């Protein structure tokens, strides 16, 4: 290093370089951050104040919350919420992949139909769609299987008997979600390099095989984070099914509160359950991201547990080094 390049008094620079010690790291006085402490204090005060005002509120009957948190009907509602979420999410994802593939295909009819599907289901309110599916019986009194445009019917059933409110709810959520998810899948597919398709084709893979084994797995890396969002919003949207009387968590809670008039307490119960469920959902998302992130970076990020053990180990060795 040439000292003459450094501006300023050359003697000071020389002095600094003179006491370089190969064996030790730099020991420097850290910069103080008084505003960090001040802002932290203000925010913390606001949080404590808000929590205190809720927790000491005389109008909230806390024992009721505790009692209903594990009430049998509430637990039943939680179960149904999970079932509806899982069914709708799984079916909608499969449908979304099909719609995205249609949208990306070179067949103009398929592309147009896929576009219209997304346009229709994304452009109308979810609540309206749910009610519409609930009223399917008004539109078609009987559902039958037969040959279209003829009078030949193999089987027929009363719509209201065949499509329960549970089924109608699942259909509504699935079809709506598929529209959103298909756009996420499409974005993921577009993110994959064109060279991947060429390499696959040059190895003699068919377009379908290429889609399934090469393009989709790579698209998953881009698809999963926004899909995690969608699962969480789906879980919460199941509460909309209360309008067609599906006995999920929110419906159960409103049924109880309409009898005991503890509306706020039961809403707290419902909120606690939704929070618990959405928190649990972030675990599989993290591991899916790791799984499909393989090969995207040189080393995979550690799992939370690995992070904890590493932190503890580092902390120990740090103490050991200082002692």
């Amino acid at each position: 290093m040439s000292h003459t390049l450094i501006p300023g008094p050359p003697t000071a620079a020389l002095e600094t370089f003179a006491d370089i010690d190969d064996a030790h790291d730099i020991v420097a006085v850290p910069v103080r951050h008084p505003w960090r402490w001040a802002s932290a204090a203000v925010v913390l005060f606001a949080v404590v104040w808000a929590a205190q005002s809720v927790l000491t509120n005389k109008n909230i009957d806390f024992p009721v919350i505790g009692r209903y948190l594990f009430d049998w009907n509430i637990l039943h509602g939680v179960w149904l919420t999970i079932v509806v979420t899982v069914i709708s999410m799984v079916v909608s994802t499969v449908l979304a992949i099909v719609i995205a593939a249609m949208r990306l295909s070179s067949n103009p009819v398929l592309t147009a139909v896929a576009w219209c599907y997304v346009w229709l289901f994304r452009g109308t309110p979810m609540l309206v769609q749910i009610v519409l599916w609930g009223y399917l019986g008004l539109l078609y009194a009987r559902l039958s299987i037969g040959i279209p445009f003829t009078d030949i019917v193999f089987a027929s059933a009363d719509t209201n008997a065949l499509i329960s409110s549970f089924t109608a709810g699942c259909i509504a959520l699935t079809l709506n979600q598929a529209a959103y998810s298909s756009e996420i899948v499409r974005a993921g597919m577009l993110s994959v390099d064109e060279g991947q398709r060429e390499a696959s084709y040059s190895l003699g893979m068919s377009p379908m095989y290429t889609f399934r084994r090469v393009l989709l797995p790579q698209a998953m890396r881009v698809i999963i984070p926004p899909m995690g969002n969608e699962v969480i919003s789906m879980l919460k949207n199941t509460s909309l099914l209360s309008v067609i009387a599906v006995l999920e968590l929110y419906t159960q809670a409103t049924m109880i509160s309409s009898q005991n008039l503890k509306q706020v307490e039961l809403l707290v119960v419902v909120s606690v359950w939704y929070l618990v469920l959405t928190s649990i959902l972030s675990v599989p998302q993290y591991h899916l991201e790791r799984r499909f992130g393989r090969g995207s970076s040189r080393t995979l990020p550690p799992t939370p547990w690995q992070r904890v053990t590493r932190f503890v180990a580092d902390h120990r060795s740090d103490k050991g080094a200082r002692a």
Partner: protein
Amino acid sequence: MSTVTATEHRAPDAAAEPLVRVQSVRKSYGAHQVLRGITLDVHPGEVLCLLGPSGSGKSTLLRCVNHLERIDGGRISVGGQLVGYRQHQGRIHEMTQRQIAEQRRGIGMVFQRFNLFPHKTALENITEAPVGVRGIGKTAASARARELLDRVGLADHAGKYPTQLSGGQQQRVAIARALAMDPELMLFDEPTSALDPELVGEVLEVMRSLADAGMTMIVVTHEIGFARSAADRVVFMDGGVVVEQGDPAQVIDAPRHERTRAFIQSVL
């Protein structure tokens, strides 16, 4: 390189039927004509190097040979079979995707940007097509893949993902991946153009050993040294036509055409 056995370079069999026949091939992108009537034969075991300035149509021609690009006029056949089309009762029919895929299995291709599958390890990259397309058993395919990795000098890197490999190593895996389908023809599209200069040699060495083993190869390259030492024939293209072709020593060291001379001088 570990077990690359430099066998005697098998001389291309000029008497035999050509493996690749390219006749009066034309190809345009919109109004721009990229190939203006190319005619070439490649015999079994022959190593053909395509030289030429960028935009001369050499990469396009290569991509036409395995139907990654559709030709507008002329004919291309590999192993006596029309590429991408089928002749039936005097008429030309387009092949179905399935038929084209089947045809491509006999033609290996190596790309400038490697195009390895990033979500699969080196070994999985190689076994994917033999297992999924050819229906070869997993264990047999793995054993063969390890053999191929050893052949390209990467026996210790089977479990690594492409991002964990250098450019030269990735390209060697890509070559092994193409070889796993037991192609009778290998296409190389500027295989060393995306590599750091010090990594070019290891890839060229693998290609040279492949040539020595008698593989039929069409190589688009800017590596004049490789063309001179490994090619049986050099074809110089410019503006979508073959300007001249012949023995590497003749085309590179004593070009007949002014355009060839100017190009060789600019890259040497």
